[in-house]
């Protein structure tokens, strides 16, 4: 980690306890309690596909900024507080049960912001990060392409230099929340004669402009935060290059590192309580359903509830362990993939159990009781948690190769000039 990202544990910063006390006074005076919000408001709060959620999140972020609680681990010179992960953790504990700008956390605060911090120019940091802190700028990722996602270094979006600008042409996909965003970190190819990792360049691209044709993709659960973009002669200034020209893989690698931490739940830049469901602890909704369906005395049902509860707790415990291991360099940076994999696998099991316990109530609305089809809908979307943020197959490759040191997978395109690499249709 570069010196700039490690929130300075230097002398003269506010103590965690004093910071916590300040948060404890400010939060109830300024934020709404989740318990006082309607069901519709709670759903909207975390709904990436709802434009209203973004408007509200930007307002909330501005309130946090004015209150002195924005960008806790971001350096002061870019509008943050320059505090430590311990301060962030204290804030997250205090703010549990209150309304926060959930949708801004991934990828804006936890992936794109940290990547700009690590790899961006001074000018880029001063231009973008303070706006992010104030809720004025939302950042997203333009990484995957219709031709593939896991083989990220094989992108074929073309960037051609023309004097002081680059012209971008190509297509991007699965760019979650792009419709609501201002800028995207966009990975392109600038040198087609170099092997695939050595001809890439990362840009900060303005999303809302005519040359970017954006459409939304409807998902199985009815949401449509996934987006697809066609870049048609998009003009980008040379000053928007993040990192070096043809050095885009270093930036993307850093971005993926932050992504794995964010998706696994281990990012120090995540602000807000982790995994808050509508009614508090994630197990609560399951317990409600078990009681309503008369299974509270069924040992099998009780066992499954216990299993779900355990998985949730262990996920947090594992995050704490892996983050501590990476911080003390006892575990390599690749260990972020361990929490990413656990996140995907445990979500799969939890969703499975949800359908098992909710039974018919997960597939049909009860005319007399609450509609609990969310268990069924979660099941339809079950694999999303093993795909988004890098597939669990890639996480398994990373764990076995970079942590256990097992041989890397054979790659037919290694050291081959990219324009000679075989591609599918």
């Amino acid at each position: 980690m570069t010196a700039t990202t490690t929130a300075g544990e230097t002398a003269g910063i506010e103590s965690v306890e004093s910071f916590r006390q300040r948060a404890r006074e400010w939060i109830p005076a300024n934020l709404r309690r989740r318990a006082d919000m309607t069901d519709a408001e709670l759903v909207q709060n975390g709904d990436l596909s709802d434009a209203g959620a973004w408007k509200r999140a930007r307002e909330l972020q501005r309130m946090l900024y004015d209150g002195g609680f924005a960008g806790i681990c971001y350096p002061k010179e870019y509008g943050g507080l320059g505090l430590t992960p311990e301060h962030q953790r204290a804030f997250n504990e205090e703010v549990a049960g209150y309304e926060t700008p959930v949708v801004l956390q991934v990828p804006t605060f936890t992936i794109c912001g940290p990547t700009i911090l690590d790899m961006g120019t001074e000018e880029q940091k001063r231009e973008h990060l303070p706006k992010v802190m104030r809720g004025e700028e939302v950042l997203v990722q333009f990484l995957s392409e219709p031709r593939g996602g896991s083989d990220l270094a094989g992108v074929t979006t073309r960037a051609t230099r023309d004097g002081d600008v680059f012209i971008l042409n190509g297509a991007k996909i699965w760019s979650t929340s792009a419709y609501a965003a201002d800028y995207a970190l966009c990975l392109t190819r600038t040198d087609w004669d170099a092997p695939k990792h050595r001809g890439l360049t990362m840009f900060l691209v303005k999303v809302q402009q005519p040359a970017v044709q954006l459409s939304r993709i409807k998902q199985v659960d009815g949401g449509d935060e996934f987006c697809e973009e066609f870049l048609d002669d998009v003009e980008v200034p040379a000053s928007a290059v993040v990192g070096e020209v043809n050095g885009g893989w270093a930036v993307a690698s850093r971005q993926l590192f932050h992504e794995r931490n964010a998706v696994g739940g281990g990012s120090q830049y995540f602000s807000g309580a982790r995994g808050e469901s509508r009614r508090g602890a994630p197990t609560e909704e399951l317990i409600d359903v078990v009681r309503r369906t008369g299974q509270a005395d069924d040992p099998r049902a009780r066992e499954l509830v216990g299993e779900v509860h355990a998985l949730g707790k262990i996920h947090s415990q594992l995050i704490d362990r892996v983050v501590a291991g990476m911080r003390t360099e006892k575990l390599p940076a690749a260990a972020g993939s361990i929490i990413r994999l656990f996140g995907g696998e445990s979500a799969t099991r939890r969703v499975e159990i949800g359908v098992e316990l909710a039974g018919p109530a997960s597939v049909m609305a009860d005319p007399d009781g609450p509609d609990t089809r969310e268990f069924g809908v979660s099941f339809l979307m079950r694999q999303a948690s093993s795909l988004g943020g890098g597939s669990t197959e890639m996480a398994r490759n990373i764990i076995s190769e970079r942590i256990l040191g097992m041989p890397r997978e054979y790659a037919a395109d290694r050291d081959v000039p990219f324009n000679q690499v075989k591609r599918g249709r």
Partner: protein
Amino acid sequence: MSVRRRERKSAAMRFELSSEQRLLQSVTADFLEKNGSVATVRSLADEGRHFDRNVWRQGAELGWTAMLVPEEAGGGSASGQGLIDATIIGEQMGLHAAPGPFTVVNTVAAALAEASNADEHADLVGELVAGEKVATWACCAPGGRWNPEAGAVEARADGDGYVLNGVHDSVELGTDADVLLVLARTPEGLTQFVIPAGTAGVSVQPLESLDLVRGFARVEYTDARVPAGALVGAAGAAAPAVERQLQLALVLQCSELVGVVQRVLEFTTQWMFDRYSFGRPLASYQALKHRFADMTMWSEAAQATMAAAAEAVQERREDAAELVSIAKSYIGQRATDIIQDCVQLHGGIGVTWEHDIHLYLRRATVDRVTWGSPSDHRRRIADLLEV
């Protein structure tokens, strides 16, 4: 294909050890390497013995029995957090599939030292800490369920003492123990006594165990008279103490399982690099690499949840019972999942008596089902959540 194995530090198990804890870890590891390895387990088993008293006494000198006992009672921890220190030893016990009464002696020593009448048992605590005497914990009902309340032996007040009747099962190293911490029920409620193994009316019957050196026993009490001085704490007031003992024992059991898994993964990983099929090492096959990724994740999660449980019990936090059951429910299951898969990856050699992996599988299987199976603990979590 040339394969360079990147060394993985086994010290990665623990991230933030103090120098005292590191010393405890390395001294324990060195000692077990010489005196408590799988070779020792095999020779003890051949001789029909469970452990060597001399080795146990030497282990006691290294602090194996002292961590849960306060200094003024003759114990003393390495870091001030005795249970955390004990889990460091427990992991080493697992890494070596070591013999000995580590978990039960520590649990009983803590129970006596924490009792309201600890003074009356100070001499015995001293003998346990010195490794001179070995104690075990008798609390389980026959028939296999683990809930301590369910199987309480009846204790009837009689003159200045009590008379015990009933049966305990699953008494770890019951045939080796010099003293038993007995859970009984009096009209006032759960009550504990500490009694010598040879007490008249107490018969100890060995139960052959899946683990070659961790024997169990059934203990029968037939009008066994014990003096009032045998009471640990007040009559009828043992329920919270028993819960505490269960938490301590489970944390130590989980630490042993974590060590068992760590060692099996170490030697199986090495095997993946050394074994070649179709001209390439097993470690180069993606299908197998992905299984190692899963096992690495489970093992890291096991270490995380064991450490979280140990911390909660160490600090006597309100969520200690919940975190302990979470840890046991997960580790009990995943430890055997991992070892079974490692048996598979070894091929035929994995199911031979000659290969050591069965010694680890035996230990993990016994740990999995004693003091509550993963299913039992999942249901206990539901109880604690008041579902």
